[in-house]
């Protein structure tokens, strides 16, 4: 669609902002050989928590997906749609909610104490796993649900007419499907959890539960040991590349796909199975909904009384998000080709934190890196969202070209006419969706900004993290509610804009 020169400029731009920072990290790491046992243990812990998170999310997702695929009740479609919501949910907000439920003074621990049982701590490995399951159980459920929908209806009817027992139905129909779906779900979640920085930052720490990214952050922020940060960054880079390769091998179906609302008919189920399904769905809803509910209940009322610095941070976050959205869509629109998609995926193969480290090292000789922290955040957010934007827009663009290119040639449409009458109206809807995702992702991101944000240049998620660190829980809840409203609000506005008249 875009002229060749624009494509080239966009490609060079991305190449520059992904490759150069990596080279900077590489050069910084060169010649030093200070990998201590702590660094190796960070690597081991990173892989351990990602593997466990993936396995647990998938294991729990199977009964949930099964229940959702066959249960019929009011609100089922809404629940399935909401399973896509964690994608744009600010991680730090969810963590605050999880602390409200599972934390030291949370409902669960208070309940256990009142029963005279010992409480448990949300910090450390099980906290990290809890948060990762919170975010990835819905994703795994959607992926597996998609698998259930691909079972041909005829096969289900056949199982009914042959009067399969539940066991033989599982062995002959459901298990073969699960065998093809679960590996790709496992890999996706594993990859996501490898570089999930915010969760580790808020719930990890200490020698026993430090991930690579958290170690980079600590080396950077507290030890000012850039060599060490660079070496850790290099390790994270290799890990990401290996994971990206894994993900390619287990190529997966579209995880953002909408339209999972087909209901599966297994015939009439015995009553106890309906009850089990209901309980599974209720438990999942409570696990996923209660934390957010508590954040809003504790925080909504105190939004109005938030102090000025927090509003300033919110303004910064909004501006960054709008900038990142504009930039991301601009680049995405000029990269709607096969090679462009590969190039855009670079941003996801490289962890944002490593990218931030590289940009910091690059900028250091010229400016005080802390002064450009907001610009760097904007840039990294753009690169993070780019693969999603390209993947949302490209299928529609391919469709437009396939369906209407000849007709527009036959009508002698000018380039402008083509954009105005064909591309714009047809691309508007995915454009709105992509813009919404980018804005929401960017507003809730707590990554690079944690590396080199300071008080005057904090974004809203960083402010929230600082409030949580100093146990100002009431303000934190207000701040979290505001962040939640902003990220979902922006997603909603952009998405609505795309749907209007579509």
């Amino acid at each position: 669609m875009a002229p060749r020169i624009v494509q080239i400029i966009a490609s060079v731009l991305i190449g520059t902002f992904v490759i150069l920072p990596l080279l900077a990290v590489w050069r910084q790491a060169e010649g030093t050989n200070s990998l201590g046992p702590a660094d190796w243990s960070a690597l081991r812990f990173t892989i351990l928590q990602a593997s466990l998170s993936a396995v647990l999310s998938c294991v729990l997702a199977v009964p949930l997906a099964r229940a959702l695929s066959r249960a019929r009740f009011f609100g089922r479609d809404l629940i399935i749609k909401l399973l896509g919501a964690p994608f744009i949910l600010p991680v730090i907000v969810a963590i605050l909610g999880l602390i409200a439920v599972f934390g030291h003074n949370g409902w669960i621990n208070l309940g256990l104490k009142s029963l005279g049982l010992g409480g448990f701590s949300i910090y450390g490995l099980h906290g990290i796993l809890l948060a990762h399951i919170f975010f990835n159980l819905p994703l795994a459920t959607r992926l597996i649900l998609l698998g259930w929908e691909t079972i041909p209806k005829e096969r289900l009817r056949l199982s009914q007419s042959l009067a399969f027992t539940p066991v033989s139905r599982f062995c002959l129909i459901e298990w073969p499907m699960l065998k093809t779906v679960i590996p790709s779900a496992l890999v996706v979640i594993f990859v996501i959890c490898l570089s999930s920085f915010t969760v580790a930052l808020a719930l990890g720490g200490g020698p026993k539960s430090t991930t690579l990214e958290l170690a980079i952050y600590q080396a950077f922020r507290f030890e000012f040991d850039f060599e060490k940060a660079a070496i850790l960054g290099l390790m994270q880079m290799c890990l990401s590349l290996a994971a990206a390769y894994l993900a390619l091998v287990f190529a997966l179906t579209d995880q953002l796909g909408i339209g999972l609302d087909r209901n599966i008919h297994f015939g009439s189920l015995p009553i106890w199975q309906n009850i089990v399904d209901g309980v599974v769905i209720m438990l999942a809803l409570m696990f996923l909904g209660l934390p957010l509910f508590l954040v809003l209940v504790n925080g909504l009322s105190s939004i109005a009384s938030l102090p000025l610095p927090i509003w300033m941070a919110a303004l910064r976050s909004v501006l960054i998000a709008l900038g990142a959205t504009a930039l991301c869509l601009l680049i995405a629109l000029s990269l709607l080709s096969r090679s462009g998609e590969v190039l855009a995926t670079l941003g996801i193969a490289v962890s944002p934190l490593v990218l931030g480290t590289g940009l910091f090292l690059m900028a250091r000789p010229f400016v005080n890196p802390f002064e450009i922290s907001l610009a760097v955040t904007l840039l990294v957010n753009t690169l993070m969202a780019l693969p999603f934007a390209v993947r949302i827009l490209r299928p529609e663009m391919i469709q437009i070209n396939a369906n209407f290119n000849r007709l527009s040639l036959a009508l002698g449409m000018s380039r402008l006419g083509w954009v105005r009458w064909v591309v714009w109206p047809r691309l508007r809807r995915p454009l709105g969706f992509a813009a919404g995702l980018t804005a929401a992702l960017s507003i809730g991101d707590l990554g690079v900004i944690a590396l080199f944000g300071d008080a005057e240049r904090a974004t809203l998620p960083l402010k929230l993290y600082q409030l949580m660190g100093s146990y100002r829980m009431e303000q934190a809840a207000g701040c979290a509610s505001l962040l939640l409203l902003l990220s979902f609000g922006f997603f909603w506005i952009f998405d609505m804009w795309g749907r209007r008249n579509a």
Partner: protein
Amino acid sequence: MLEMQNLLLHQDGFKLLACVPYLGPKIYAVMGPSGAGKSTLLLALAGFMPLESGALYWQGQEITACRPAERPMAMLFQDNNLFPHLTAERNVALAVTQRKAVSLQTRKNIQTALARVGLGGLGSSKPGQLSGGQQSRVALARVLLQDKPILLLDEPFNALGPALKNDMLDLLQSLAQERQALVLMVTHNPQDALRIAQETLVVSDGTVSPPMPTAQLLAEPPSALAAYLGNNATRR
């Protein structure tokens, strides 16, 4: 008149030679086995495919190098003849203008064209709100407004039921006669060919044969066509 002078088409190892000295303002059917290159021929004539060699003449002028919109041809494809997000009126209007504002005269012409195909009053509907037959009519209305002397049809009415299709064929025939247009219509149904095309071109074995009277051709089909049609196909 249209002249195909040794047109050689080449696509994925598939070759088609067309040498047809004269096609006048009539309706011609284009028949032949599946995959013989009927659609390819039309796409090449309309300028969507480069020629390997040969030349195409219209009224004695060479048009081989012209772009699709510059050729004296309008084409109806198998599908995607309309933009689904635009109203019928706008779809038709795109034949003459890409501006948002449409002149009064053009608007009148659009109304006339829509009325001529039997869609008066449906101009503000989008294709999704129209039936299959009505969608074909909108496309025909646009072709009317494009006002080209040659019309290429790549089975655009295929998805319609028999009665609707016959309606469309009859409408097409009267429009073509009114305007003295040259129509090339791909079809695999001998009844369609017999209904409106006096002459038929056969595409088979890598060549396009010159037109033959349809009735005669179907009564004594050459072997390749006979195999494709089957024994009972032409029995009425």
